[in-house]
């Protein structure tokens, strides 16, 4: 089944630095979403970007989508220790618009 895959699997940065995570997927999509999960908790939705959009911002988050390369990136600027979490991209399913397929995630550690 279609799936996004994040890169890198793990990332460790100093507080104040920017963090960039990438997501690649296999087939055409209608939208792509990014989620955050703090340790042992449920996922929190961050941003949804539709296939006709190229860039979207939300606070310190910037998401880009390149449908020609079938990839997306999530940039977190001026990172904080509280940004330490796992980040997942999710693409809509080939078989149903209502379902999404989650990638395995990027684990981000922000060192104070």
């Amino acid at each position, binding site marked *: 089944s279609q799936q996004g895959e994040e890169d890198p699997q793990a990332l460790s940065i100093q507080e104040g630095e920017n963090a960039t995570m990438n997501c690649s997927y296999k087939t055409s999509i209608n939208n792509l979403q990014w*989620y955050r999960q703090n340790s042992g908790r449920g996922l929190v939705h961050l941003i949804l970007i539709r296939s006709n959009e190229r860039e979207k911002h939300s606070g310190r988050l910037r998401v880009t989508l390149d449908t020609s390369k079938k990839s997306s990136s999530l940039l977190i600027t001026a990172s904080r220790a509280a940004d330490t979490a796992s980040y*997942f991209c999710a693409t*809509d399913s080939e078989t149903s*618009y209502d379902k999404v397929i989650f990638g395995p995630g990027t684990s981000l550690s922000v060192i104070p």
Partner: protein
Amino acid sequence: DVKVTQSSRYLVKRTGEKVFLECVQDMDHENMFWYRQDPGLGLRLIYFSYDVKMKEKGDIPEGYSVSREKKERFSLILESASTNQTSMYLCASSLGVTGLSYEQYFGPGTRLTVT
């Protein structure tokens, strides 16, 4: 604020027991989902419901069943719990508008241990 609640944060059950995991959402969402999350495997969809009494199998439905008698409540049932069902179980809900997908709102998760 959308709220998705799950009946337990931690649960310990014995092999062979019937286990019920309950999920309730308060935003009148059409869609509800059950996932399990395991290290290295990410989130895998067990079952999905797009309306009351309607359900659809996800990627790993074996050993599980679901029930949706009311719009706000979606239950996951382990008919006969086995040790390989030890996992984190996450419930989510979303709007269901044909042709579009929307953000999912997750509950806090239930960490189930089967001994």
